[in-house]
């Protein structure tokens, strides 16, 4: 039985020429070879290392630092610097994370205790589920020809966990934030789905492999309107400014997360970044040619994953700039934007797709 599983792992391993001698050596050691085979087993590698959990960790550390540093540059400041001066404060997010770990977690009397404590950890489920279906070349967990549709459906689960968090907190500001989150969800979800639909129609398939293959010119050139809708929807979905409405700290003091402290706050705070990462991966696949890029012989199977990751991260770094440019919209303004302009241009992008597919071939 164990041998059968080991054989299955061995038959589907990520081949990286750079570390292949080490892998070969490790495979000769009795117990270690099982672990190495598991880690390098392609489905596991996709979820746990790249573009999965490992990618998320790198993104969290990089993104928090970059966002603070970039905002500081725009604002005539220096930004994080004192934690490890030679690296210009690069490990500041790590220091913050450590601080969260050693801080007391306060569970207030009025909270619904079990849900209040569980939910921040449970939120990782809807965050990690879409990663199962995001392929990076040969590295993929579940291969499906409806992958894009499934990813979009699973992303829609994330707001539900936030709403549950706000409800379990049993606080007035958390309640208002929860309602705002639900409202915002309605504002962006339909234009977002229509924009994705337009792209699927254009490529003729929801299979990421077909989509990447068909992008001889990137999707952003083929249908820029759909990209615009997707981009604004990303800002709304991840509550970046100017749509940082559910968490508006000056208005409702971090909304659904108002009562959290310590490591639980550390976890819920990263939720928006994780969602941003997944939406950027989807954006890369749909509009920026996915994992296509020139091959790096030394990295072997890892090359597509690296390309996908790098493209997604670059988009994220650009999105970080929005924070220093815009103030926050009001909820009703965001809703109006979602249901009029965005819905309108998303339908227009669908029309472009229809015209391109049926009349121009």
């Amino acid at each position, binding site marked *: 039985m164990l041998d059968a599983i080991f054989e299955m792992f061995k038959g589907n391993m990520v081949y990286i020429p750079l570390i292949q001698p080490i892998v070969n050596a490790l495979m000769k050691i009795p117990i270690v070879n099982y672990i190495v085979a598991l880690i390098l087993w392609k489905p596991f590698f996709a979820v746990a290392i790249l573009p999965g959990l490992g990618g998320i960790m790198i993104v969290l550390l990089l993104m928090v630092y970059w966002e603070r540093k970039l905002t500081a540059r725009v604002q*005539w400041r220096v930004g994080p610097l004192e934690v490890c001066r030679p690296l210009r404060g690069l490990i500041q997010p790590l220091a913050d994370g450590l601080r969260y770990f050693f801080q007391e977690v306060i569970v207030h009397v009025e909270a619904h205790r079990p849900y209040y404590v569980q939910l921040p950890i449970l939120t990782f489920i809807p965050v990690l589920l879409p990663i199962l279906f995001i392929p990076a070349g040969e590295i993929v967990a579940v291969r499906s020809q409806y992958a894009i549709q499934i990813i979009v459906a699973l992303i829609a689960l994330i707001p539900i966990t936030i709403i549950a968090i706000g409800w379990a907190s049993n606080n007035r500001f958390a309640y208002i934030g929860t309602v705002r989150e639900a409202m915002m969800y309605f504002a962006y979800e339909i234009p977002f789905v229509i924009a994705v639909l337009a792209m699927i129609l254009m490529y003729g398939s929801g299979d990421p492999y077909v989509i990447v293959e068909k992008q001889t010119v990137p999707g952003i050139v083929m249908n820029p309107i759909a990209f615009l809708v997707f981009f604004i929807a990303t800002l709304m979905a991840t509550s970046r400014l100017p749509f940082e409405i559910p968490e508006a700290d000056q208005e409702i003091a971090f909304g659904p997360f108002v009562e959290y402290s310590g490591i639980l706050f550390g976890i819920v705070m990263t939720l928006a970044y994780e969602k941003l990462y997944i939406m950027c991966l989807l954006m890369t696949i749909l509009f920026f040619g996915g994992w296509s890029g020139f091959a790096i012989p030394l990295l072997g199977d890892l090359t597509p994953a690296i390309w996908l990751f790098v493209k997604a991260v670059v988009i994220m770094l650009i999105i970080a700039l929005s924070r*220093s440019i*815009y*103030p*926050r919209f*009001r909820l009703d*303004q965001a809703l109006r934007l979602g249901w009029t302009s965005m819905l309108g241009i998303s339908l227009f992008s669908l029309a472009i797709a229809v015209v391109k597919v049926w009349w121009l071939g």
Partner: protein
Amino acid sequence: MKEFSIDVPVEPPTELKPLFVPIPAEYVEDAYKSDEFIVLVGPQHPGSGHMRIIVKVHGDIIVDAIPDPGYVHRSMEKIAENRLYIQNIPLFERPSIMDNANFNLGYIRAIEESLNIEVPERAKYLRTIMAELCRIGTHLYDAAILAVFIGHTTGFMYPFAVREIICECLVRMTGARFTSSFIIPGGVRRDVDKKVLDFVRKATFEIERRLKNFEKIFIKNPATIARLREVGVLSKEEAIKYGVVGPFLRASGVEYDVRKIESYEAYDDLDWEIVVADEGDGYARFLVRVNEINQSLNIIRQAIAKIPEGDVISQDLFEGVDSSTKNPKDIRGAFYDVFANLTLPLGETTTLTEAARGLLLYTIVSDGESNVPYRVRIVTPGWLYLRGFMESLKGERLADLQAIYGSFGYFPPEADR
């Protein structure tokens, strides 16, 4: 729009009972019986400052707003009764530390009016320059607070960076970034030399240049305009009825400025205009103050160009003082001889000053024999427009509370005194 009421039994939250909230218990119960909701914004709320606003909301719309100020009340009027007139100067700078020169000026002018001292021309010009620098500083501070209240952190940092230039000007003129107690009865403490005045003149151009960046990123930002336009509107009649003062009154279309109507210091000799807007909404209140910054820069440049040579301390004060310490350009050495036993004649003196946030009133009552005031009354602009601020909240959305708060530049330490 049709409304659906959901019949859920809701208990008034217990936290409203032990807190010393200035509302009757029935008010809370009534709100919870209907489908309204009471939100306490403050005093630990990130968007409330040192005050609490009790907001009754119906859905997302504010029905009623009750202010609960007094968290930073320092009892200045009472403290002033036990201090010498001269010791009160640093005290009365404190209500609004950015606006110290204007607050100082009101108090000093009341003393001067009572003693009937004629202030030398050069001192008047120096006071005008200081008052306008502090006015710009306060407006920038308020703009920064407005920006961060609607979530624009860059709009928060830029004005504070610009304010550093003003602080540098004040350092070179007076020796302190703010609360310098530079204005004294009969003039100013020291003369300011030409080099420093040239620096201040150059600084006004630098401020103007940097404000262009601020204008690009915040003032003309479409999201800012969307947040502030047609929000918290006070019509001309309402503004007068609720006793709103200063730039906020002018934003509602009332042309009233103490500097023009009861001119003091050097304002009459200089060429400037009252900034007025008609809309009366949050954006108008903000724009009026932005334009006032430009007017103030203009006033400073003119004052520096026109400033006459001469003494800076009135000769009337030096009667009976040892002649070796007499110096009409510097009070050092003669300070205690002149001011320690300063006594005001019997009676009451009132002065009006246009502070950055509006009308500022000082009344000094003296019994004619003691060297401390019998009573000092200070009415600050923040306290005067609090009513208008609360009225403008009604009918707006809960998210607009911070935008309106910022557009009024309400400063609790100033209002509470």
